[in-house]
């Protein structure tokens, strides 16, 4: 299948492992990625927290650019995903706003492309059966808790994705790879997001709680699909509770035997290689 691809700013920087693993996994699953021409930042949290119209216009510019290809748009970053979906939601329900934004960008907004995150595309378009068929090395011994965070799921009428209190898509993907998905109650708890620089202590407290609850659930790692969550999990946990974190696509790549995963694991702040080595997975 073919999709338009919007990496967003993080995936070209601190979320590099996510970008590279999404690309490797997409190639293996025959998903052709066409990066949106001359994309710009979606505005993330900072735009909507300070300027509503800006927060709709910035994603709209990119959605409009994607519309000419008439393909679904894959947006890995959960924040970008949420901003794109929010922009579409507001543009659909507010004609005056749409006219305003079209004037700013200088092009028509048609509202015809579907914005989707990679968990959705892999789960619904590829399927967990297909995934388990092509697993080269089962991730036995790996016990991840699936951490979805906030922005992939809430508000549900905007995100139109998985269940907002107990999502299961990422858990099922992990199970299909041979890992033991652990049940826990913090799947959608906030990591503190963009407060990580301005209010680091708040983020530390939230992350430590996640790590503690993950351990209580019998997990030996946390798997996520958001670069901000990953950065917080990877860099803000206290030493006594820390667990290694992964992007879900890194684990798919590992299970499928794709090349390149070692380079990504080296870039993590909390080295996951001791865990993986002890389980014979690398």
């Amino acid at each position: 299948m073919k999709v338009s691809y919007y990496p967003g700013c993080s995936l070209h920087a601190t979320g590099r492992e996510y970008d590279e693993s999404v690309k490797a996994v997409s190639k293996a699953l025959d998903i052709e990625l066409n990066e949106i021409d001359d994309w710009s930042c979606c505005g993330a949290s900072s735009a909507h927290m300070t300027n509503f119209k800006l927060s709709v216009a910035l994603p709209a510019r990119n959605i409009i650019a994607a519309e000419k290809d008439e393909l679904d748009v894959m947006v890995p970053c959960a924040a970008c995903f949420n901003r794109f979906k929010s922009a579409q939601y507001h543009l659909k329900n507010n004609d005056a706003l749409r006219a305003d934004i079209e004037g700013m960008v200088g092009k028509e907004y048609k509202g015809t492309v579907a914005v989707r995150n990679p968990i959705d595309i892999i789960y619904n378009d590829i399927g967990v059966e297909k995934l388990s068929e092509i697993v080269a090395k089962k991730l036995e011994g790996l016990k991840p808790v699936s951490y979805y965070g906030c922005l992939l799921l809430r508000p549900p009428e905007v995100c139109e994705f998985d269940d907002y209190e107990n999502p299961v898509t990422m858990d099922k993907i992990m199970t299909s790879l041979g890992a033991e998905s652990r049940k826990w109650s913090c799947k959608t708890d906030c990591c503190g997001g963009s407060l990580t620089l301005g209010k680091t202590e708040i983020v530390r407290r939230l992350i430590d709680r996640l790590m503690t609850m993950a351990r209580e659930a019998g997990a030996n790692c946390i798997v996520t699909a958001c670069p901000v969550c990953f950065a917080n999990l990877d860099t803000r946990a206290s030493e006594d509770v820390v667990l290694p974190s992964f992007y879900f696509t890194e684990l798919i790549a590992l299970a499928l035997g794709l090349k390149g995963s070692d380079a990504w694991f080296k870039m993590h702040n909390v080295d996951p290689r001791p865990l993986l080595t002890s389980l014979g997975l690398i």
Partner: protein
Amino acid sequence: MGTFLEDVNERIGGVPIQSCYHCRKCTAGCPIAFAMDYNPNAIIKMIQMGKRDEVLNSSTIWLCASCETCVTRCPNNVDIARMMDVLREMAIEENVGAKEKNVLKFHEAFLSNIKVGGRINEPLMIMLYKMKSGDYFSDLGMGMSMFMKGKIKLLSPRTKDMKSVRNIFKSTGK
């Protein structure tokens, strides 16, 4: 300009916030409430009482992480997270400053970085934030380590059509 309540409701453009009957589901599910000076549902009551200064000068509106848990759970569909966005916007417009200075400085650094290249250049943006906040030394070790691992590059591709990006900022600027 109407009452504080009318202004806020108009900007939210959805369910009027006085629909809140203080079940406190928002406060109970808020991950940041422990650090706030006023609970989310208290802010609603304060708006109804016209306490403009206290609300716009609160920590609460800046600490809200927009996790949208409140919105999702509110039985009356009050858009509390959007209310927080609106209050932040009003605080900026009215030049009252931010009680949580570093949070606003982060947003300013972030947005001004987009104006430069259309995309965030993380090292540059973080440097800008550090200069604004005066917080030079936290995460220095981690930043160096990320740089050595090749995670953050000093140069990154920019959007070519900067004219359109700047036009967006100009048209939405206040």
